């Protein structure tokens, strides 16, 4: 019988965006459970503190940051590095979704989603991967995409564009960063009940929601289902995985 596995993270610092709720919160909790120290990034300090209270005493930092203000991202990560030492990873779970058919779409609506879902992710990667920020041995970057980066959905044109774009960007990032021992991956969840998805689905009819639910052969996911997969991709157990996009969707995209 093999010995028990050591913790996946040996007190390594991982930055988690969108940590004030939903998937980001669940991922931060799971990372802490597996031995990581986490930097919780979000706009609302009170809600970040609520996440911190779930970390069972794990060391953490709260970084209040509006990710749409791209110019603030590098200074925030540089400051964090100065406070806690080298960073080992990033999980960009923050995201915005706006249901807009083409006829009611607008430049502003598309841009607001691009700003957070894509551009902030790229800027976070740049900030965390600076040679004076990331650990000398390298690290791991994870971007929470969506099944809608792979398949279409009426009313989600802008959102699909941002989620597909991050998957494409991560493939190039993985190739560029491999020589420095930095891995970059995406994880594409199907429907998981979070505050954000409940708000979005709340605008749809019961029949419409039932159709979406029925499209997941294993049923609707829990945030913890995504969190466990995220922790795996961020950990050394995934040391030979880079440039991948892992569907965690109850079979949604297998059809």
């Amino acid at each position, binding site marked *: 019988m093999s010995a028990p596995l050591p913790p996946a993270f040996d007190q390594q610092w991982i930055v988690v965006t969108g940590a004030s709720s939903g998937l980001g919160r669940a991922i931060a909790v799971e990372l802490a459970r597996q031995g990581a120290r986490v930097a919780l990034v979000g706009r609302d300090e009170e809600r970040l503190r609520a996440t911190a209270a779930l970390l069972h005493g794990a060391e953490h930092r709260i970084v209040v940051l509006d990710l749409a203000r791209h110019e603030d991202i590098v200074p925030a990560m540089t400051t964090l590095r100065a406070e806690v030492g080298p960073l080992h990873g990033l999980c960009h779970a923050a995201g915005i979704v*706006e*249901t*807009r*058919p083409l*006829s*009611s779409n607008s430049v502003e609506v598309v841009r607001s989603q691009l700003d957070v879902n894509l551009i902030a992710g790229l800027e976070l990667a740049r900030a965390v991967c600076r040679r004076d920020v990331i650990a000398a041995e390298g690290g791991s970057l994870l971007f929470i995409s969506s099944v809608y980066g792979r398949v279409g959905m*009426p*009313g989600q044109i802008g959102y699909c564009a941002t989620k597909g774009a991050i998957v494409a960007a991560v493939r190039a990032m993985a190739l560029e960063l491999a020589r420095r021992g930095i891995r970059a991956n995406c994880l594409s969840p199907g429907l998981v009940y979070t505050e954000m998805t409940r708000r979005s689905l*709340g*605008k*749809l*009819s*019961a029949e*419409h929601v039932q159709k979406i639910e029925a499209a997941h052969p294993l049923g609707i996911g829990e945030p913890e289902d995504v969190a466990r997969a995220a922790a795996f991709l961020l950990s050394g157990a995934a040391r030979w995985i880079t440039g991948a996009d892992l569907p965690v969707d109850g079979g949604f995209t297998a059809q």
Partner: protein
Amino acid sequence: MPNMTLQEALTWIAEVFEEPAGRIVRDTKRSEIPGWDSLGTLSLIAALDERFDIQLAEDAIEGLRGVADLLDVLRERGALAEA
């Protein structure tokens, strides 16, 4: 919240469903507006929220039979001046 006249409201509804201004009148039925399909409903939900801060779910919109019902919603929510 804007307090529109009836004519302004009809023009706004025409814009939401991409109809020529003037084709939409108080008695226009939903079935007479090609753009008021399931996606049109989503566009209407977004437009009501963005323009008037009115949040209606898809089920509530599904119950509207035409322009007159939609005008009632606008009036009840204070977006349309009383006739």
